[in-house]
């Protein structure tokens, strides 16, 4: 454990963050002249100052970043930046959030969860709205760079799969030079996706501000919107189609985008087992949803059922959390099914949350293997992904991940129930936060503002836990981690 290098990295990150997070809203504030500029200037100076102090105090440190430091850096990345990002919410007279609410909002943004405590978004100053959207975009970028390049090396919950197996960016074990290269390439993809998405939104009818703001949260699979009604505000099927397409793209493993882009081959996607399964889940859940909506007469026309149904499925299953309809009031099992879809989540290496499609696929295959083993006790059955065998070590860690995920879910559910929430609210709130989804059911369908303070802190922890693939955070709580 090298505290100095961790502090140094965090110092740099904070300085970087102070500029990236506060400068653009400041410009927006000037453009719209909404009087919010002191808020962003203040938070810029405070965060930059703290960062500079941390950096200066460790400037002479020349140690290398070790494996354990990696866990700490990744965890602190979201925890510290989450707190730093809460400053404008506290300073701004337009929202005036308490510390709890501000941290919740900021963390929800940075982890690309999209759960909000603010209501009455439409009346907020543009710069604050822009700041929220941008937090998610920066969070998404953090995920792409850190989660893609760093987490696989830490080997969390079977993600070492991508270290050895996946073609492209994370093949090498050398941390720094590869990290820089990988991060750059992924960042380009992320940026170009955002630009294209913003243009598409603009073309189909959003104004420029909304187009850019929503492109941020679409590509980051965040789900913040500049309107209380989310994307439903626009009431425009074309916008919903654009959102569906870009949520789908952003839910795909970025390593896959990277390789496909490098080789200029679409077939690369189709041959990827995770992509196949991801598409399969989305298509089958969509078919069920659309038919239930249509046949139970929620919407009169098939077209409306299809567009609203598919939109909500993709939005939930990729853990984005946009809404165009009050899916809470949808009949039968639909709200729960969508929540389950969110538990499966998006592909590993995307900005989405959830347990990740690849893990579910492996668990599924393992389940089939167990059944086969009952029939043929002596059979030697390998688990294969795309024709290549997966080592038992990886399958084991996926199981471990699954078990800990379920346990964490249950413990937090109990804790929320203890704060006095009803079971549906508590269940969906934990589900929505640990999977970085955003909106839940019942009392948390639109805003989390009404929840008790304790519940909000528990949910903050849940968001962090989900974003850090559980183990990265849990490992910090083990005594073994801190032993020299």
């Amino acid at each position: 454990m090298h505290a100095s290098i961790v502090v140094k990295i965090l110092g740099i990150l904070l300085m970087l963050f102070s500029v990236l997070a506060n400068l653009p809203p400041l410009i927006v504030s000037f453009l719209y002249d909404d009087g919010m500029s002191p808020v962003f200037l203040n938070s810029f100076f405070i965060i930059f100052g703290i960062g500079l102090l941390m950096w200066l105090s460790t400037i002479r440190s020349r140690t290398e970043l070790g494996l354990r430091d990696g866990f700490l850096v990744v965890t602190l990345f979201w925890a510290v930046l989450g707190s730093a990002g809460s400053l404008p919410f506290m300073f701004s007279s337009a929202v005036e959030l308490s510390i709890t609410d501000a941290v919740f909002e900021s963390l929800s943004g940075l982890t690309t969860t999209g759960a909000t405590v603010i209501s009455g978004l439409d009346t907020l100053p543009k710069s604050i709205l822009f700041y929220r959207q941008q937090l998610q975009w920066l969070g998404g970028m953090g995920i792409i760079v850190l989660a893609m390049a760093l987490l696989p090396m830490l080997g969390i919950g079977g993600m070492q799969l991508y270290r050895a197996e996946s073609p492209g960016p994370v093949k090498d074990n050398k941390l720094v030079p590869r990290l820089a290269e990988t991060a750059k390439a992924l960042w380009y993809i992320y940026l170009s996706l955002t630009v294209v998405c913003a243009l598409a939104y603009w073309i189909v009818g959003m104004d420029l501000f909304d187009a850019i703001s929503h492109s941020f949260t679409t590509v980051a699979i965040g789900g913040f919107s500049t309107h209380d009604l989310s994307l439903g505000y626009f009431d425009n099927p074309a916008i919903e189609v654009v959102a569906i397409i870009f949520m789908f793209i952003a839910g795909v493993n970025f390593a896959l985008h990277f390789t496909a882009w490098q080789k200029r081959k679409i077939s690369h996607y189709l041959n990827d087992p995770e992509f196949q399964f991801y598409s399969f889940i989305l298509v089958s859940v969509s078919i069920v949803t659309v038919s239930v909506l249509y046949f139970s007469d929620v919407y009169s026309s098939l077209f409306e059922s299809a567009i609203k149904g598919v939109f909500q499925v993709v939005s939930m299953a990729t853990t984005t959390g946009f809404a165009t309809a009050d899916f809470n009031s949808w009949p039968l099992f639909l709200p729960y099914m969508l929540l389950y879809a969110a538990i499966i989540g998006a592909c590993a290496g995307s900005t989405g949350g959830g347990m990740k499609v690849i893990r579910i696929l492996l668990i599924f295959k393992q389940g089939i293997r167990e059944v086969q083993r009952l029939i043929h006790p002596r059979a030697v059955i390998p688990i294969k992904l795309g024709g290549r065998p997966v080592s038992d070590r990886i399958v084991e860690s996926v199981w471990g991940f699954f078990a800990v995920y379920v346990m964490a879910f249950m413990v937090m559910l109990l804790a929320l129930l203890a704060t006095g929430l009803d079971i549906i609210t508590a269940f969906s709130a934990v589900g929505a936060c640990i999977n970085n989804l955003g909106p839940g059911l019942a009392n948390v369908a639109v805003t989390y503002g009404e929840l008790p303070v304790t519940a909000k802190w528990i949910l903050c922890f849940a968001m962090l836990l989900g974003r850090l693939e559980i183990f990265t955070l849990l490992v910090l709580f083990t005594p073994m981690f801190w032993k020299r």
Partner: protein
Amino acid sequence: MKIIILGANQVGSTLAETLANEANDITVVDADSEKLRELKDHIDIGTVVGHPSLPDVLERAGGQDADMIIAVTESDEINMVACRVAYSLFQTPKKICRIRASSYLETDKLFGQHGIAVDTVISPELIVSSDIERLLDLPGSLQVLDFADGKVQLVAVKAYYGGPLVGQEIRLLRQHMPSVDTRVAAIFRKDRPIIPEGSTVIEADDEVFFVAAQKDIRACMSELRRMDRPYKRLIIAGGGNIGMRLAQSVESRYQVKIIERDPQRCTFISENLNHAIVLNGEASQRDLLIEENIADTDVFLALTNDDEANIMSSLLAKRLGAKKVMALINNSAYVDLVQGGDIDIAISPQQATIGSLLAHVRRGDVVNVHSLRRGAAEAMEAIAHGDESSSKVVGQAIRDIDLPQGTTIGAIVRNDEVLIAHDNTVVETDDHVILFLVDRKRIPEVERLFQVGFSFF
């Protein structure tokens, strides 16, 4: 012909034995002097002790004036190097090399004058597994041989009571199946060959060899026996090269289970197969076989390297209810012992391999040779060259060709068209003629028949 054979293993020694009987000048090279002495004791060959790929060893074996070198040692690498050495030092005209690893076989760029300098690559595992595959695809057959790229097949079946033609004269075949053309090439009754004529009566338990176009084979078989239902469930014992290769090529068509005793090999096989179920255990374990439903298995194939294990596990499988059992048996003494008893088909890897080697040794333009009935009989595909004046076959009707005794012409393939041979069919130049020889001693006469006279040049 002067031939050097590298490797005195099973393939090498069987080959030496077969070729020596055909008046060739054979030298066998092997590092194991004991093996060579045994071989020399009972066949008339020369032997050289030494590492087969070394230039000095090859020179001692008569590399300078050898017409052909056949490298069949256990090692792919030794075989390839020996061929290259022979080509570089002695310009040996014909080099045949045995290759096991499929990776070498994937590209043909590897072999050629500028590469490893091999004229013909043979892979016994590949030959055996495709032989077995043909047997599986044609239930009830004892042997299935391809000619002219599979357009014509020679099939051996056992005639049973209840087959429409059993107890009838062969000439009635045409009346039974007016639309199907076939020719009975030979009949073995109690292991004695009978040259079929129109009036020959087929009896039950006769082993009938007939030639037909591939699409007609099933119809012909149904004349001689009730057709077996197509096979569905297979159990392969032994996940070696042959077992795994066979499983790979048939797993999409059949339900395949493969039993292998080595756990590591099991893992390897399972990773290379997509549908087949790989079981870790001994094929001779009664419980395992029962557990895996041997009673409902259509074919049990024992394909390990161990003859005795193959025989025992096949017998066990048969006793436990497997409908058909096939066993890989190297030792030809065992073959006579078990075939036709409890074991339905004994597959001899050497016979299969040697057939494909013989095609290259024969004089005249012979493209395909299959050794039948443990080397007693032979089927070959020869190309007729020359014209009426230079060739003894071109321009002649089949009834006029002076065939040696015990030889029949089964079919002719002319420009991709299959013509079943009848007495008045006239052979043209470049025809592929498929012949069946009951007696191997007549081979030189047949060879002479297909050699072109001097006027051709």
